[in-house]
């Protein structure tokens, strides 16, 4: 007698040939919901701006049914920037989720420990002294990796739940962003205005030139993230239990950290050091999936949604002027961080 193989509660067994994969219902539902939300945010981001388009108009144009003017607005102006924001948002959300779960601390995100500022400093240095005007997006991973090495040199190990990491990281963040500002202050403001705007987190003028190579590298890193995600999920039980369950801790930690830093740096290369997306997106994603799984993909999508909406707000709020997107995320993210810390106070006291 053949019994049908019963999967664990709340999961679906997917059999493809010899493969047997498990999918969590709730995580799947949330992912689909967030995918839809991302599409809505994309359409909103393209419709809203100084020249008004209706969402219906945008959809028509995207499907090749628009007039010349709306085609120009959508394909030449809005869509490139929207794609740049989308890629940066995904990168920030994903890298935040990777590092948070690795260090087991919600405050340990690339923007809090100075990785993004390291990427920023490298880009400022290269654009001012070496590439002279050409956008050196590829310098971002170098700066971010150098920062990570510095951080590990100072900390030796992340400490219990990464608190040492976070505290030292806050100091490193300040140092690096001061160094970036120092470099920029040695040049006349006319020459560096675009770099300066970028360093505040700004997507104006960003398009396919940076977003396409960054997105391609991210896609190449994706299979490694997918491979490591299973081990990283077991590491939610702590390193001792995970190693008892056959996870090669050093290998997984090294791999995840390297990839998370690369992804964060590439995200930063597009729109500058955007704060708080990498922290808020994974926390809310984890809440949405009921903490049942490691919400890597949900965090990436939510990062994209948050950044798309922030960028749209930045363009719309003070028309015809534009606020830096980084300023919007800092305002919204600051409120979220305060809420988080005050909420945690009860547990810490």
């Amino acid at each position: 007698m053949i019994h049908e193989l019963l999967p664990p509660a709340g999961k679906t067994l997917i059999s493809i040939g010899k493969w047997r994969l498990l999918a969590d219902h709730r995580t799947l539902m949330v992912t689909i919901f967030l995918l839809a939300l991302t599409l809505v945010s994309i359409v909103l981001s393209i419709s809203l701006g100084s020249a008004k388009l209706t969402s219906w108009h945008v959809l028509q144009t995207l499907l090749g049914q628009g007039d010349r003017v709306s085609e120009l607005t959508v394909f030449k102006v809005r869509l490139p920037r929207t794609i740049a924001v989308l890629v940066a948002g995904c990168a920030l959300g994903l890298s935040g989720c990777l590092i948070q779960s690795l260090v087991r601390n919600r405050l340990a995100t690339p923007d809090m420990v100075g990785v993004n500022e390291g990427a920023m400093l490298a880009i400022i240095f290269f654009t001012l002294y070496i590439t002279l005007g050409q956008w050196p997006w590829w310098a971002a991973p170098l700066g971010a990796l150098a920062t990570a090495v510095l951080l590990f040199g100072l900390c030796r190990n992340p400490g219990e739940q990464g608190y040492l990491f976070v505290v030292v990281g806050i100091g490193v963040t300040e140092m690096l962003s001061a160094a970036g500002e120092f470099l920029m202050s040695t040049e006349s403001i006319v020459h560096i205005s675009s770099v300066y705007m970028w360093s505040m987190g700004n997507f104006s003028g960003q398009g396919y030139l940076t977003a396409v190579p960054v997105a391609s590298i991210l896609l190449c890193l994706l299979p490694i993230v997918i491979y490591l995600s299973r081990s990283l999920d077991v590491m939610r039980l702590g390193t001792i239990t995970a190693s008892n369950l056959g996870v090669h801790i050093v290998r997984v930690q090294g791999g995840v950290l390297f990839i998370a830093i690369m992804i964060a740096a590439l995200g930063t290369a597009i729109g500058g050091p955007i704060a708080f997306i990498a922290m808020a997106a994974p926390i809310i994603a984890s809440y949405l999936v009921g903490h049942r799984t490691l919400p890597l993909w949900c965090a990436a999508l939510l990062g994209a949604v948050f950044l798309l909406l922030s960028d749209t707000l930045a363009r719309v709020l003070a028309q015809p002027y534009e606020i830096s997107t980084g300023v919007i995320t800092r305002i919204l993210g600051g409120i979220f961080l305060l809420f988080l810390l005050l909420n945690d106070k009860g547990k810490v006291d």
Partner: protein
Amino acid sequence: MAVLKLNNISFSYRQQHIFNQVSLQFGAGKLIGIVGPNGCGKSTLLKLLARQIQPDTGDILVKGKALHRYSTKSLACEIAFLPQNPISPLGITVEQLLQYGRHPHQSWFNQWGKEDRDSVDAATQLLGLADYLHRPLAELSGGQRQRAWLGMILAQDTDIVLLDEPTSALDIGHQVEVMECISHIASMGKTVVLVIHDLAAAARYCNEVIALRDGAIVANGTAKSVVTETLVAQLFDTHVDILYAPQDDAPVIVPRRKYLHSEPM
């Protein structure tokens, strides 16, 4: 036959010798208790066996093969280790925990199979987890949670099980419950090495007791032969009387007061 063997193991931590040339053997299918005062090295011994730490010199053999020659995954199929205070993350249910126990037997492309289902079901039944299988681990009482962790260890389906003070944070009822579970796991033919504070429980449940002090083996043998008044004095610098339980003649340790006639403060 010995499934676990330590040959001349030395280990030091922060320039302090914890073990110096220690040799030990653990017989197959036995429940072995490791006892001794705080800081005697009993947890360190368990961590060495679980490969959480590496010895400075000497070697450890698991089923005749050197411990360091196992891959992480193949070792996880031979030895299951439950640390003293495992982390119970938010949102994980008992069933998910049991599922995690199957991790060393699975791969990315084979995340669930018949053996996994059978092992999880067997662990659920043996440890009586059916009533709260779908409840989050973080919501359970200490005793229930410890049983769930033992369930994960059981689902891991290894021949060797290492437990670090599994009863230390529990009240007396849950202590008995968890010890009965452990004794049942050992009766399935597994080799269980248990670090335990409670001498009486060690004497009652274990086939063999190893007593450590300052990293040296003070006594090693059957529970009855090891747990004596002289040994307790030797281990803990305390004089005790040993009585025998009416139910099963297991030794019960009753410490003597130092100043019997002094007034309580």
